[in-house]
């Protein structure tokens, strides 16, 4: 155990050298494990525990059994938030899985200025969501630039109330999430595109298959692994939408943009019903977990 030199003769797939002293790995692991233990694992268990209490930062937490979960069941705001979050996913995820493929195909070609173009498309990704939200709030103004474009091109006859009409608000916020995520997923697909053998396209070219058909029948099927990754990442991100909502609508108008995470924030840090908020958090956790598992299985099976 104490002699690291025993595995002296090299072999092709030999295991990593032994640790030497048994406590040595521990020393390397202590800082990371204490941070992750204190700020992830312990709070995760604590949060599940809190969800069975009436904790509110002021009084001692009392065990209340399933009361918070029963309250959730009868809470119209919770159902509205859950519904909004699910709508969010159903709209945003397919958009973010499919559209960036075409974007990647578009810029996956040597053209003058292509590096700059890719970087420009990536710009919304590095912008903090608070700023993205503000930018779009300004673009969405009743007398703003987007309404001007829509009116002059004749797409609408009256200015659209993007963020103040409950019928539009959720879609308008979703558009920002899509805008902010597009470049990131484009880069993932660019990586996927690099792994497709060029020869396939050359053969297709000889066979007289059009560019468009090549994209549909060669590129997209071979991008399946990247699509799996993107759908998991984008659906988890959609479950956790917060900043856009906070900056643009504060969950309104009439709760039409209240998402699960916004509701957690509101319950915990505006209403100070921490136990209740923790219960919503547990629901969120279960949903994200289920989602990743379903997504992965579904896409692996293909």
């Amino acid at each position: 155990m104490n002699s690291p030199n025993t595995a002296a003769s090299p072999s092709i797939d030999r295991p990593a050298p032994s640790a030497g002293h048994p406590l040595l790995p521990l020393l390397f692991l202590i800082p990371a494990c204490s941070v992750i233990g204190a700020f992830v694992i312990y709070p995760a268990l604590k949060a599940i525990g809190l969800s069975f209490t009436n904790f509110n930062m002021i009084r001692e937490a009392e065990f209340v059994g399933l009361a918070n979960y029963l309250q959730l069941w009868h809470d119209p705001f919770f159902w509205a938030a859950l519904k909004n979050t699910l709508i969010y996913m159903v709209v945003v995820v397919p958009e973010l899985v499919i559209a960036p493929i075409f974007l990647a195909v578009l810029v996956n070609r040597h053209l003058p200025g292509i590096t700059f173009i890719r970087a420009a498309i990536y710009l919304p990704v590095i912008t903090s969501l608070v700023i993205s939200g503000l930018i779009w709030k300004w673009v969405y103004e009743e007398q703003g630039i987007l309404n001007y474009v829509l009116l002059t091109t004749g797409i609408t006859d009256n200015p659209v109330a993007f963020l103040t009409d409950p019928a539009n608000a959720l879609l308008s916020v979703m558009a920002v999430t899509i805008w902010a995520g597009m470049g990131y997923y484009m880069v993932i697909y660019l990586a996927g595109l690099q792994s497709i053998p060029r020869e396939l396209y050359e053969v297709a070219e000889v066979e007289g298959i059009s560019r468009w058909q090549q994209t549909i029948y060669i590129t997209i099927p071979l991008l399946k692994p990247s699509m799996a990754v993107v759908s998991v990442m984008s659906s988890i991100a959609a479950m956790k939408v917060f900043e856009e909502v906070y900056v643009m609508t504060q969950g309104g108008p009439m709760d039409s943009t209240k998402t699960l995470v916004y509701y957690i924030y509101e319950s915990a840090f505006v209403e100070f019903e921490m136990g209740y908020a923790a219960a919503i958090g547990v629901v969120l956790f279960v949903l994200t977990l289920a989602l990743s598992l379903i997504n992965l299985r579904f896409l692996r099976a293909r």
Partner: protein
Amino acid sequence: MRADSSKTRRTDRQALPPWPELLWRYAAIALVLVVAVGPFLWLLSTSLKSASENIFAYPPVFLPESLTLDNFWRVLDSQPFMRYLANSTIVAALSVFLNLLFASLAAYPLARMQWRGRNLVFGVLLASMMIPFQLLMIPVYELAISLGLQNTYLGLVLPHACTAFGVFFMRQAFLSIPLAIEEAAIMDGVPRWKIWLFVMLPLVKPSLATLAVFSFIAVWGDFLWPLIIIDQPQLFTLPLGVNRLASTFSLDWRLVAAGAIFSLLPILLFFAFTQRYFIEGAMRGAVKG
């Protein structure tokens, strides 16, 4: 044969497409850029318009009548934006440094040593990546309050100080280095910590750079955690500062735009210099999922 095909591939990719394709590609790209970058330019234009110019003019005016930096001076005069910038920089620098240090320390025995419990520790770390911060934030808030971390830099930094993703990412980096390099050093009796510091770390520099860039973006743009743990403006980071500006000056979009542009500049500069790591990182992050 292999060299040959890769050569033809390269020349093929560097050749310009025929002009009809060139045309539609650039047309499509122009459209994409209008959507991706247009909103930023509109914000910039608004921030440069003088108080006498109607920002709601119809039709909208893209180029300000007279360019002015007044809005920026007014924001800097009335709000401690320089302070916000300093706060953001301190918090991001500390978080990134600690994340790189802790993650590459922890990743080393996970990748390069045999010991009992290794798979268990790695499994727990992997599982912890699945837990959303939004579930954790209430207990973490409570913990931070009880540790006296409210309204402190440490409070902002600690939850970012080590991410399981970072450990995972660095473990992959260490795994890709041939064992022989390390074995030679072990045979010579060099202690493992020296091997980690002088042999392994220099070999994973590109991964460290990628991780640095990614954690920087995450911390720099973080909003939810600072929103909860900080309520004193002198400790605000830029996103909190811009949010405060927007809620106090919501009637004057020139000022909001100026504040937003001000907070965008540092990250743009950072992006300009580290761009290739973003692309590489997103690509490698993607391979791992």
